[in-house]
């Protein structure tokens, strides 16, 4: 295997010598592969967020040491999409009331950019836009109509609120090379994260030029007691309510029995 790859590289190198520089860039260019440490993550009752390791390698790396900084990586993690309603308060008769509401479709519940350095240093804005890297590139589909100039405010508010909730995040030095080709990144998922399919897109750059991307998935699920309560509450709401009442009655009676002995 190894010999085969080496042979092919030599052959391509020899060929490209004779060909144009464009061909050289295309044929011997580096590519990236990656995976996550856990594909299925469980949210349990002691869940207070989780850190996942993303690791990968740059194939055909010409870097000799991690300090070379020849390559840049920008990883975009997107959580399951959800419908949202964004509301804005204004002052009515002296108190703050929600006066405007706009529904949004398919808003990423989670969006993280993890990169070797700030993304605007990695590549030009057009390229970042084309690859969909950056909070500005998040697709937020508003359903209704806006008053003039309001759409921008609403859009920014989603990003701002999600950022304060820790659901939209940037880690500008979150990817590090370990060897000449091996890299690792950590993905932080806070406790309030939505469950479902997450996608991770790993983009490789060299000197501001885009080389290659790799996509992988991870699945976040509710497990254990937490999952039980949640499923019970949403799938059998009536029985959940009855169970909550029975628990309360038992708790109340148990307390009396315990404290009577004193």
């Amino acid at each position, binding site marked *: 295997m190894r010999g085969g790859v080496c042979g092919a590289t030599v052959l391509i190198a020899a060929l490209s010598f004779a060909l144009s520089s464009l061909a050289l860039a295309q044929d011997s260019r580096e590519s990236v592969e990656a995976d996550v440490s856990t594909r299925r993550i469980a949210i349990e009752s002691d869940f207070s967020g989780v850190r996942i390791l993303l690791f990968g390698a740059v194939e055909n790396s010409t870097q000799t040491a991690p300090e070379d900084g020849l390559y840049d990586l920008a990883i975009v993690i997107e959580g399951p999409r959800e419908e949202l309603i964004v509301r804005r*308060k204004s002052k009515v008769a002296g108190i703050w009331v929600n006066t405007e509401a706009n529904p949004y479709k398919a808003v990423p519940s989670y969006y993280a950019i993890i990169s070797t350095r700030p993304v605007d240093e990695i590549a030009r804005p057009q390229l970042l836009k084309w690859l969909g890297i950056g909070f500005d590139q998040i697709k937020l589909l508003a359903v209704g109509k806006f008053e003039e100039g309001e759409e921008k405010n609403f859009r920014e508010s989603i990003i701002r609120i999600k950022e304060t909730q820790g659901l939209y995040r940037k880690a500008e030095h979150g990817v590090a090379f370990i060897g000449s080709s091996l890299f690792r990144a950590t993905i932080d998922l806070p406790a309030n994260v939505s469950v479902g399919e997450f996608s991770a897109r790993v983009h490789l750059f060299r000197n501001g030029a885009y080389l290659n991307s790799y996509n992988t998935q991870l699945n976040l699920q509710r497990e254990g007691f937490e999952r039980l309560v949640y499923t019970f509450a949403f799938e059998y709401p*009536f029985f959940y309510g009855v169970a909550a009442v029975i628990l309360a009655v038992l708790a109340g009676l148990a307390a009396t029995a315990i404290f009577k002995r004193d």
Partner: protein
Amino acid sequence: MQIYLPIAELSVNAFVILGMGGAVGFLSGMFGVGGGFLMTPLLIFSGIPSSVAVATEANQIVASSVSGAVAQWQRNNVDIKLGTVLLIGGIAGAILGVQIVKVLRELGQVDLIIALSYVTFLGTIGTLMLIESLNAIRKSRAGEPVAARKSGQHNWIHGLPFKMRFKRSKLYISAIPPLLLGAFVGLLAAIMGVGGGFVMVPAMIYLLRVPTNVVVGTSLFQIVFVTAVTTILHATQNQTVDAVLAMMLMVGGVIGAQFGVRVGQRLRGEQLRALLAILVLGVCARLAYNLVAMPGELYSIGPAFGGH
């Protein structure tokens, strides 16, 4: 220790929640009140969504009032017939209240209405209690006897139709006032997450003229069932009952109440009421401030409804 609340969808410190349950339990034991009107605002202040706070608190009140109800039952202090009439009204009120919460949630106004209801109720009751207890303190200092209310007088309630005989309460009154009173308290339970004893008890004494020895028992009887029905209705209509949160509040609450009762027995009635009035007005002021003060973030995001 962090615990993830499955319905509120946030991670909280278990000791903070237990402590809150304990503190409110202590106060409710000390003052002899349910505590829902203190617990719900506290939960909202600590970041629990209003609709979850209300529904979960209704669940907790079941636990905190069931033992009292059983004790009163054993002492034959429950007028079952009157309690049932109040309960029928209460269930109707709870059904209406839960439906109102559902609609308000869709409109995005549930937080506002819950806060406004609290400001109105706490403001009114706190002021009345403060005036009454200060008068009582003043009179007892001046050496005047505290005037007992005249009883046995007939009022407008006796002119209403559909009269029923309530043997245990020695009353022959129309069924309409207890039905309406029950409905009003049921509405409060559903919208505010309170037992409603603070409305029920004075109304039974002064309006229905129920003898004081059956007032507490009958009101507790009604509260247990109305909060139980409210819990089930919120669970089915709004999916807002957080059982994990409720359990923690219950544990903290029952322990706190045991100590509160002991402290309360050493304090004088009118001083106790003045203290409670100040506390109620404090919570009211805090809620009112939140409504009036410019919020740090004008925008809010919430889940879309109708999808599931």
